[in-house]
């Protein structure tokens, strides 16, 4: 018979199996001794694209170039760069494509504002369309006195 303690252990094991760890490629030899600097380096690495794999950040990528850029970022931080300066140093070399999240600027307005704009245009179009078809779809109102007189006249005219 499994003890109460044993049951709890099995639950823990099952829970641990459900928890998956995010992939990391940072090698122990790359890590900085200062935990604050290392944390900043990790945050920056998560925002930079690996140019070899192109859809992974350099924090996740095992590519050689990603390793070099991780080291480069850490060197810049150790030398006293701010996060923005370190990122800019990489952008200067590899272009804005290295940024996984492109900056908001005139060249990327279409990228950033295009989808919400399309949504608004679509919603507006749908509203207008719904509004226009409502009178036709709804129950027809009874004819006014003027309309019945005109209709009578037309019917009589047809009969003649």
């Amino acid at each position, binding site marked *: 018979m499994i003890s109460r303690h044993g049951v709890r252990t099995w639950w823990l094991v099952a829970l641990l199996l459900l928890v998956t760890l995010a992939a990391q490629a940072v090698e122990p030899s790359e890590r900085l001794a200062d935990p604050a600097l290392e944390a900043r380096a990790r945050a920056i690495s998560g925002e930079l694209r690996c*140019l070899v794999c192109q859809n992974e950040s350099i924090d996740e990528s095992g590519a*050689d*170039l990603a390793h*070099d850029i991780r080291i480069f970022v850490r060197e810049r931080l150790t030398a006293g760069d701010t996060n923005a300066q370190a990122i800019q140093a990489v952008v*200067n*070399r590899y*272009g804005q*494509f290295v940024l996984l999240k492109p900056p908001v600027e005139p060249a990327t307005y279409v990228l950033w504002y295009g989808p919400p704009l399309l949504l608004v245009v679509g919603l507006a179009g749908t509203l207008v369309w719904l509004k226009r078809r409502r009178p036709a779809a709804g129950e027809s109102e009874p004819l006014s006195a003027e309309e019945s007189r005109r209709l009578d006249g037309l019917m009589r005219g047809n009969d003649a």
Partner: protein
Amino acid sequence: MKRLFYLLPLVLFMALAGYFLVALRPDHDIHELPSAMIAKPAPAFDLAGLESKQPLDLAALKGHPFVINFFASWCVPCRIEHPLLMRLAEQNHLPLYGIAYKDKPADSTRLLATFGDPYRQVGIDEDGRVGLNFGVYGVPETYVVDSTGVIRRRFVGPLTAETVDKDLLPLLKQLGRS
């Protein structure tokens, strides 16, 4: 007016199709990235020369337009362009300098001893830092630098006879004149 409105989806489709036609044309590699270094001064370097020959120093190269080729012994596409580089070296058309990118010097030496050495000089960039400063993201990459040391053009991947004839040599000629 209302009729024209119904043409809108067609117009949008044509615009999209036109864009894809340009962006996905067969001779265009969508993985090839534009260089951020074009029209910027080449990053300074002073690399130890291969086989303890004289060092490869950017400052010493200025004064004439020249070509820098990043290569490595472990790089398969480099073997593809190597015979072309050898031919160009024999014709002496190209002021070609090599940088051995992330390669052990002994391996680079063996490569050039086996297949021939097309370079006027070769610098050793074993940790790839000069490559990183140039924005190299794979080998081979070839850079055309003008006489003032400004990068004018980058070729990603192996050079072909066609790109050399139509692009690289005319550009060098033009840079040499001005």
